[in-house]
């Protein structure tokens, strides 16, 4: 009954001057509950110990194993082979620097993006008083912030992004959602102008072409589309603050967000 899977894997070792990018075929017998994590490890253990790929938590939580699976970015660990045809084609994520075979350098990319958007809560961190009660927060707001903190930095959204493919310096939906997380957070003292400085440009919200591949492929189902919309609206309004009458601005301010009642 069980299928024999034909797994075609992109191979290239950039450090080996004799290595040419090519596809290599492997064959493994499928069994119950098999995931690409299991299949790729069988290949490495039994057929080619030099095959490069990344897994860590193997539970869809850490984001290590993003790759292009039959043409679509996704997490290999939570992709079950039974949901795929018996011919599976695997490529490394585009946009990120290739380390070798299916392994790409997401770490450097995300660190750089984090530094550019100053991805931390901006307040006086030294001011913490160990004897004082914590500052209160509404539970609903805590949940909203956590919703955006769920990003696992797998890079799937960046790989599926038309803009990121064209311009190297585009921050991607993941960074914009990160800024939205700090914008939501009352502990972050940055104002609209500060955020504008960070993503009010072609590298940020105004570079997005609105193709929304990011949202389609996000394995954590983070509402990237909403966040892009919210941030773009906020920053667009901010940029015409001195031009439009206050009345019009006020009217615009609270529309366009699906979380608000209109």
């Amino acid at each position, binding site marked *: 009954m069980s299928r024999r899977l034909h797994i075609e894997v992109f191979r290239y*070792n*950039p*450090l*080996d001057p004799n290595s040419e990018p090519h596809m290599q075929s492997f064959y493994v017998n499928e069994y119950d*509950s098999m*995931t690409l994590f299991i299949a790729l490890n069988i290949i490495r253990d039994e057929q*080619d*110990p*030099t*095959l*490069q790929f*990344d897994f*860590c*938590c*193997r*539970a*869809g*939580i*850490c*984001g*290590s194993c993003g790759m292009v699976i039959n043409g679509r970015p996704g997490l290999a660990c*939570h992709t*079950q082979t039974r949901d795929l045809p018996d011919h599976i084609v695997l490529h490394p994520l585009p946009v990120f620097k290739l*380390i*070798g075979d299916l392994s790409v*350098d*997401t*770490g*450097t990319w995300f*660190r750089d993006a*984090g*530094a550019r958007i*100053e*991805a*931390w*809560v901006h307040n006086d*961190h*030294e*001011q*913490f008083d*160990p004897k*004082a*009660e*914590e500052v*209160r*927060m*509404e*539970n609903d*707001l*805590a*949940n909203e*912030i*956590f919703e955006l*903190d*769920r990003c*696992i*930095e797998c890079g799937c959204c960046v790989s599926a992004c038309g803009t990121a493919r064209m311009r190297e310096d585009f921050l991607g939906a993941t960074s914009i959602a990160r800024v939205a997380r700090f914008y939501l*957070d009352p*502990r*972050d003292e940055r104002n609209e102008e500060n955020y504008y400085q960070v993503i009010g440009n072609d590298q940020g919200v105004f570079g997005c072409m609105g193709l929304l591949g990011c949202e389609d492929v996000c394995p954590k189902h983070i509402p990237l589309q909403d966040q892009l919309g919210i941030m773009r609206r906020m920053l667009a309004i901010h940029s015409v603050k001195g031009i439009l009458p206050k009345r019009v601005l006020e009217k615009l301010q609270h529309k366009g967000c699906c979380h608000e009642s209109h």
Partner: protein
Amino acid sequence: MQIIYSDLLCIGAGLAGERVAVEAAKAGFNVTCLSIVPPRRSHSSAAQGGMQAALGNAIMGDGDTPDVHFADTVKGSDWGCDQEVARIFADTAPIVMREVAHWGVPWNRVEAGVHTYYKGGKPFEAEEKLEKHGLIHARAFGGTAKWRTCYTADGTGRSVLNTLDSMCLRYEVGIHDRTQAETLIHDGENCLGAIVRCLKTGELKAYLATATLIATGGYGRIYKATTNAVICDGGGQIAALDTGLVPMGNMEAIQFHPTGTVPTDILVTEGCRGDGGTLLDVNEYRFMPDYEPEKAELASRDVVSRRMQEHIRKGLGVKSPYGDHLWLDIRHLGEKHITTKLREVYDICTNFLGVNPIHDLIPVRPTQHYSMGGIRTNRDGAAYGLKGLFSAGESACWDMHGFNRLGGNSLAETVVAGRYVGKKIVEFLKGHTVDFKQSAINDAHAKVAARIMEMTKSSSKQESAIQLRDEMHSTMMDNVGIFRNGKDLQKAVDTLDELIDRSKNIKLQGTAIGFNPEISLALRIPGMLKLAQCTAYGALMRTESRGAHTREDFPERNDKDWLNRTLAYWKEGSTRPELKYEDASPYFEIPPGERGYGGGKIIAADIPEEKLRLPKNSAEKKKAKQTKKAS
């Protein structure tokens, strides 16, 4: 060889590593973190449940204090913990939770009013107080007298790690990801840093540092069935053990989590049971209250795992192609609760098991989960045996967990110890200079380079690292599991003797220029075998049952002979560790007694009177604090 200098080198950038890094960076020191994976992929990110701290904001945690938390922790440890350390932990945990809140962790908060909660599958109502509205909330976890586990939905590890990583960015901590520390550089007295292999290029580099911290997490990968991530292979412990100077504490103390899923071994959080989930057998009968009338599913993890195994042995498990298992039932919590507060559980069940927990039962069985043991440190986090070497988090045996740690206590330990040890490291850095001896650097480098050269080039070697790993896995699973006995443990020790011998002859199967993933495994296996041997041999010699260490042939907790901590040293060339023992605790603020769950006989100890109370100075401090509080 490239040489990189820092004041503090953190090996590991999970919660403990990053918390220490932040403390030192804030004090103005130059800090570098090494990590096998980008820091946010560290296994801390997978911790779903929460962090215990006696804030007492939730109505079900009303009246909680660090004293109650301390008592729960000591009982949980089966009196195996260092009570001085457990006290430091319980006292500072609330401050640390507030501190990370200040830095950005979106803890779930108290919502005033009447809420429906679950206990043992049954709903009940409780009213959260108005004056606590908006403060950090808590949920129930096993082995605790109060609801005290702070949480952010079921992504606590993720959200706290994001926050600490953002602080590392803020304080410009150097993050060198895709690096593996292969060996420590030391001169016999001082630790001087590490020889590090770049996992992008395969290159070896020397990282020199005045202080070195090991915070690499656990070593669960010595077992086949473990909830641990692929990277939890004990790299940090191996580097420390290989010095021959630094001992491992209580390596036989291994925790099995009651709810690893079948067949993937992925963990579903204790929060499931904390929130009211129940365990059922093949007849869908709830069996835990029969064994543990009071705590039922929420007894400590060692007890629940043992009872589950006992029940399976009675033939009441559910048969499956992957072996027998039991069921976890959370259906009664309803769709909203499951898809919000337990969303990660929902995702895991639907993505990996093809089970919808809103309507279906979840197949679970006890699975290796946590290493209570590790690099033995003093209360400041300083490793025994080498100056300038520190450890914190799961990689360390700081030792607040003893022979069993409570759910929510280890995640809290990462940041609480991180903060405490971080401050001690800052003190150390302020008062210490070190002489970086060229010979020590060269020796360490030559050692690693020679190992790689031998396994690549030598023609007389033929062992496969994969084969050795698989044999280690099966002997650990078969002989060093939840229930242990002398015969099986001896079998494991003998097998590991042989595997350690064979591991000197590892030969690579393939070749690659630059980074070769096979070398990573081949370099790690000999060390993993040593950690496995420390575990098996320590368990063989410990002829009693305490916490998670359960000997069928020695069912009593023997305080008379075994109220102590195993220290395992490894002399080069040996196939077994040298074991020494030290007192479990410098003094017993809570004298050894009954845990109140788990049953079992206790052989009482003769503890000298002066050890049954706080030492004079700390007792006075405590008294002063209480009078101050009262006034």
